[in-house]
């Protein structure tokens, strides 16, 4: 059986030890229905063992392989080469924006994870609470209490695309705020309202909606931030009258 092969030039960002970024080109002959991550792996395996990148599950569940592909945030394990280039074309791979680069394609996500914990992010929710209210009910079983993992896979694509995260290190970012909204839905803990009610929280958003545009997992963080704003406002107004 003949597998179609394309000639693709991968242009990969290389950066070690805080040196300035360099772009290195690798010519690959590759099946276009493989994924960008597969291409990166081949480069590591057969061309340059010093290339550093993150990957784990290879099926869009772990959120490790987020990168910039031709300037757009993508989860590289589910982005086919065919969808981002053509035979004889180039494919530019860079690390996510708005995170410090550790090495090549790996960025420092430690603040991101710490803030997610502070947002009391609970990864499991009932079916009703995990789904977006405006999504059609896709449950096939409607009786009984079922739970599932919530949609956010903590990949950080949303932070990379966010204009507020571009210039502010302390802005919580869409994933963290979305997590706070998800957690508040489940626990109704008012500490989460205080968490969001900050200049660096829900009020730092400028409605660019780019986070929801790049999210590979249907979290819709922009909608969640607006929902959090509505809830925070309602809470603050109620507090005014309680005094």
């Amino acid at each position, binding site marked *: 059986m003949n597998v179609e092969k394309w000639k693709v030039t991968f242009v990969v960002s290389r950066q070690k030890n805080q040196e300035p970024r360099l772009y290195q080109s690798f010519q690959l002959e590759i099946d276009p229905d493989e994924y960008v991550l597969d291409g990166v792996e081949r480069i590591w395996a057969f061309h340059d063992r010093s290339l550093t990148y993150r990957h784990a599950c290879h099926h869009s569940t772990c959120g490790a392989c987020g990168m910039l592909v031709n300037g757009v945030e993508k989860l590289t394990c589910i982005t086919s080469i065919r969808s981002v280039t053509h035979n004889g074309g180039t494919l530019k791979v860079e690390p996510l924006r708005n995170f410090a680069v550790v090495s090549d394609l790996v960025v420092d996500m430690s603040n991101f994870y*710490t*803030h997610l*914990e*502070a947002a009391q992010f609970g990864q499991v929710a009932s079916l009703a609470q995990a789904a977006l209210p405006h999504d059609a009910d896709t449950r096939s079983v409607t009786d009984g209490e079922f739970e599932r993992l919530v949609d956010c896979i903590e990949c950080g694509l949303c932070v990379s695309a966010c*204009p*507020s995260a571009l*210039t*502010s*290190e*302390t*802005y919580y970012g869409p994933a963290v705020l979305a997590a706070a909204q998800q957690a508040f839905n489940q626990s109704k803990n008012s*500490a989460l309202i*205080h*968490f969001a*009610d*900050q*200049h*660096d*929280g829900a*009020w*730092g958003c*400028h409605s660019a909606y780019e986070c929801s545009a790049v999210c590979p997992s249907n979290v819709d963080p922009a909608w969640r931030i607006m929902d959090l704003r509505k809830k*925070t*406002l309602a809470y*603050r107004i109620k507090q005014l009258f309680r005094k």
Partner: protein
Amino acid sequence: MIDHISSPKHNEGIWLWLYKILAGLLVIVVLGIHFVINHAVAPSGLLNYEDVIRYYKVPVIPIMEGFFLVIVVTHSLLGVRGIVLDMNPSQKVRRAADWIFTMFGATAIAYGIWLLVVLANR
């Protein structure tokens, strides 16, 4: 560190943001009135001095314009301040910026009101 994250900072954020949105909506309404009255209703579209002076003798006009001035200046400066805040300035820079914005706004409003009073009394 978790405490630092969840403790509320000083009182900006929600109320200034809410004011900015409401002021913005008001600006649209009053700008519409300002524009229509000044250029479609008032004689000559207020394109000569005598008509302007006569127009400002009607008491509701300086009052409307004064109100408009306040909400436009505050909305605009709150917006620019928001852009500055996006760059995550240090406490010192932020305080300096707030002071500059306040001075700018107060001066613009004071000057505008002075102008209105002068014109209404010509």
